[in-house]
């Protein structure tokens, strides 16, 4: 079997210790959460890793809490916990959709939300769902604590704006207004379910008086990072949610996408999926908002 190369390992008990360990470990020191990305990256030697800082002994980094104005999800919260959360289902359905199709059960039981954002995979499932939910991340680093929109964390394939000693501690997701709905849809190589996405789309809408007042659409595997589709969002905002207006937004999403061809799919097929999946995600979002799509 493929063996891991030697590395330094630590289990800090506090955030401060962890940040210090990362800072002293330098470029190739890495946070270990669920390990479902990091261990794979180490085995495949995608990333040189000299030190592993396991943050799972640090208290307070898990859990899903109702803060009233917002939902707090600890960075170490397992994908399975998100999948099974009533609160998240009620408030941020796209996140539950995404969690329930992220990898298979024995991976999902290890994978964390923080690690998903930390890995910054263009194919991320939680990324687009967090983006359309307007989530931000709370980050602890050598300079103290800060909060940033998840959307702004992604800078390139596999790259975030976090420094190597930054640790995401939790995610804050604003409680949505009345008329909010969201959904996440993806397609993998085996035609569905839990494979890494050939393409994925999250969408959210706020419907007021039969009109889409606010709309967010985020795409995965359709560009170098999970990102928003501005033209598509603009196309739907202010419109009544009909098959026609949703379809027009979906067409626009295909224009917003900048897919590449790789081992999973060709660029042109991905462009088609951008349209089809955006339409399906929008339908799901509208349905979960309690609205309906007029044919």
């Amino acid at each position, binding site marked *: 079997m493929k063996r891991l190369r030697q590395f330094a*390992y630590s289990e800090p008990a506090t955030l401060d210790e962890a940040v210090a360990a990362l800072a002293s470990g330098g470029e190739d020191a890495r946070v270990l959460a669920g390990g479902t990305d990091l*261990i794979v990256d180490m085995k495949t030697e995608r990333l040189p890793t000299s030190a592993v800082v396991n943050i799972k002994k640090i208290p307070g980094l898990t859990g899903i809490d109702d803060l009233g104005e917002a939902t707090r999800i600890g960075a170490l919260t397992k994908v399975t916990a998100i999948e099974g959360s009533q609160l998240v289902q009620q408030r941020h359905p796209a996140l539950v959709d995404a969690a329930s199709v992220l990898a298979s059960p024995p991976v999902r*039981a290890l994978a964390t939300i923080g690690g998903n954002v930390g890995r910054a995979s263009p194919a991320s499932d939680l990324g687009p769902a967090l983006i359309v939910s307007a989530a931000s991340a709370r980050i602890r680093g050598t300079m103290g604590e800060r909060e940033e929109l998840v959307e702004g964390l992604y800078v390139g394939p596999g790259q975030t704006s976090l420094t190597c000693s930054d640790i995401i501690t939790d995610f804050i997701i604003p409680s949505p207004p009345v008329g909010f709905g969201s959904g996440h849809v993806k397609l993998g190589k085996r035609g569905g379910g839990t494979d890494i996405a050939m393409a994925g789309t999250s969408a959210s809408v706020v419907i007021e008086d039969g009109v889409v007042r606010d709309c967010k659409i985020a795409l995965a595997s359709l560009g170098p990072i999970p990102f928003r589709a501005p033209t598509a969002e603009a196309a739907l905002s202010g419109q009544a949610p009909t098959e026609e207006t949703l379809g027009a937004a979906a067409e626009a999403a295909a224009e917003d996408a900048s897919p590449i061809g790789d081992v999973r799919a060709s660029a042109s097929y991905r462009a088609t999926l951008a349209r089809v999946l955006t339409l399906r995600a929008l339908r799901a979002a509208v349905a979960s908002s309690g609205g309906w799509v007029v044919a």
Partner: protein
Amino acid sequence: MTFRIDTTINGDRTVIDVDPTLTLLEVLREQLLLSGTKEGCGVGECGTCVVLCDGEPIASCLVLAGDAAGCSIETIEGLADSGELSDVQRAFVRTGALQCGFCTPAMVLTATALLREDAAPDAEEVKKALGGILCRCGAYPKILEAVLEVSGEGA
């Protein structure tokens, strides 16, 4: 460098010194000689290495040894250590839910975990729970039959 971990393996408290740069799978197979757990791909895709951690199936090839501390780990060796096959194991034997047998420990453990959570899962729930474990022999129809046979009887 070794780390002392205090863990429970198949119901027995186990305090061992582990190299923290090894995976749980390596420690189980090579240090504790519990070779019933297999590796199929090493990157979490095939599910062959599944063990139960606090009752939940996890891919042990992606877990570092240190994370076993404080957990209750169950491997296939723990299911029939009294010498009696469990209900799930018996159903696998009866229905012929195995061929080469390499995925069988993971399938049996995952089915066991499912049936503890939900005594009567339906076919779709069984498929969903077992969806992360590959069986190249394609024993799926009989695996499904085996689990459904136990479903309802309780595990």
